[in-house]
């Protein structure tokens, strides 16, 4: 053994830097809980959400003086169980959020891809349409639909999606414009690929990161809009439990029965916050270029 060999201190194996840092477990947890509630509503809800009992009107939550565990979050103006209504309400909110965003993103991405790929007059026309759409207030459109066709789940999704697609179109078109300058698109075209193949096989996969981030960020926004519409009576028609209309129903009694508005409001807050935090994390992790969105 050589004496002059200096023993180096052992270096602990350092884990390679991972992209999976600061995973928002709390947000994921909240979203999972609400998704489970929505899916398993018939099993989990303690009572029928539409079961009225005028004798039990405005029962406070269980921990208040006159509350009981029969209605853990109290009852509303018609004696309906708040907890059950919130559980069933998560179906409406999540379904509205997810369906709307999927419809809007599919259409918006298609418009963005076509505009960015063809450029020129096609691009100019589609982008003017996008600008016009973005200048139209969602709430107003939904109110018009509600007044003329009548409020329904389908109309809420339609009203929001008809406006929301424009955001996707704009962002995706911007990305496609950058991609079109890269040689690999030219190379694919030189190899004999047509427009459809280039758009679907090469441009779309390169924008998927952005799409996933946008979709997540927008779900929260759509839930808020749906709640606002329901609050205004232009959303999901009663008696279907929807968080927005529940907040609206309770607003006359906020001083005497705060729980009627408070709990659905809290539910909106939690879900939207969870989706936004998850979206932020996805953006920072997979698409840091989008930071300004």
């Amino acid at each position, binding site marked *: 053994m050589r004496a002059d060999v200096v023993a180096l201190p052992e270096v602990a194996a350092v884990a390679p830097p991972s992209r999976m840092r600061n995973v928002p477990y709390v947000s994921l947890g909240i979203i999972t809980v609400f998704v489970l509630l929505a899916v398993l509503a018939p099993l989990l809800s303690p009572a029928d959400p539409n079961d009225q009992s005028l004798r039990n009107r405005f029962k406070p939550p269980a921990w208040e003086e006159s509350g009981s565990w029969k209605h853990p979050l109290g009852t509303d103006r018609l004696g309906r169980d708040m907890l059950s209504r919130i559980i069933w309400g998560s179906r409406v909110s999540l379904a509205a959020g997810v369906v709307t965003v999927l419809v809007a993103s599919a259409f918006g991405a298609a418009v963005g891809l076509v505009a960015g790929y063809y*450029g*020129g007059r096609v691009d100019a026309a589609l982008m003017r349409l996008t600008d016009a759409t973005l200048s139209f207030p969602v709430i107003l459109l939904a109110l018009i639909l509600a007044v003329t066709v009548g409020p329904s789940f389908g109309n809420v999704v339609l009203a929001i999606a008809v406006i929301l697609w424009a955001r996707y179109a704009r962002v995706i078109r911007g990305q496609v414009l950058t991609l079109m300058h*890269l*040689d*690999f698109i*030219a*190379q*694919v*075209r*030189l*190899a*004999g*690929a*047509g427009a459809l193949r280039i758009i679907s*096989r*090469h441009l779309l*996969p*390169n924008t*998927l990161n952005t799409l996933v981030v946008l979709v997540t960020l927008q779900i929260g926004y759509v839930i808020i809009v749906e709640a606002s519409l329901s609050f205004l009576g232009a959303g999901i028609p009663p008696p279907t439990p929807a968080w927005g209309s529940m907040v609206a129903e309770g607003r006359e009694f906020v001083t005497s029965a705060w729980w009627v508005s408070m709990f659905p409001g809290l539910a909106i807050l939690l879900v939207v916050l969870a989706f936004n935090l998850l979206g932020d994390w996805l953006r920072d992790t997979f698409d840091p270029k989008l930071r300004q969105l």
Partner: protein
Amino acid sequence: MLVLEIRGLQTHLVTRWGTVKAVDGVSFDVAAGETLGLVGESGSGKSMTCLSIVRLIPSAGRIVGGSVRLDGEELLSKSEREMQQLRGRKVGMILQDPMSSLNPVFSIGRQVREPVAMYHGLRGQALGERAAALLAAVRIPSPVERLRAFPHQLSGGMRQRVVGAMAIAAPPRLLIADEPTTSLDLTIQSQYLSLLEELQRRHDLAMIFITHNFGIVSRICDRVAVMYAGRIAEMGMVRQIFTSPAHPYTRALLESIPRLGARTSRLAAIEGQPPDMAKLPGGCAFAPRCPHVMDRCREQAPPEFTVAPGQVSRCWLHAPA
């Protein structure tokens, strides 16, 4: 056997500053197994000429005249659908920048399989084997493993080989290489040129090599066309162009290359600026910079004069007296 015959090709670009004659009456032939070098400064119309062959010029461009024949078939009258069938299958092209010429989100395998599936209709295992064989053909070590790699895991030279593999997947009749070695370092450049020569021999490819490097021209080209302002100033065998350049522009270009062991201490630069393509002077485009300029040059554009068998020059100096 002639693979490509171009006659009087004219491609114009409509810009804010007027119509630019990016390609102005270019004619040349390329035979199977032959390499034609296209040299000239930036904006002289080399790339535009090649993009006109495959009809993929920018949207502001129009091919306004001439004829491009591939294996005797006129390309300029074909429909876009027919051109799609022909790109890649008959004409392969390699672009300059290996860093962006592969799709970053797909594995090498997926990208190499795509043209193979398109051209040969192969599926499944046969497709994978063919893709691996293509990578092996461009001298990529352990091709089967490389198929699973992503572009960012490969060096520039390796990526350019992958692009080469995709370009010869058909294999095509004509291979156009647009400065494929510009962004590679010198040893890799040399290997890549050897690879192209090997592929050319194996498939008897007609090849057009765009470059502004005369070293590369002497290394792999059989003939050279020197372009200036959208026209071919001089064309001839490589030996002719190097030993007896006829056109003043060619001569000036060759004098501006540093040579080892040369006595002169200063390099000769070409006076003046490359011409503004939107405001070309009447007559010869090189006239304002030409040391031998005559009155006639400013009035009338020179036609092609044969200065030696196989060597032509567009310069009034060579007009028969």
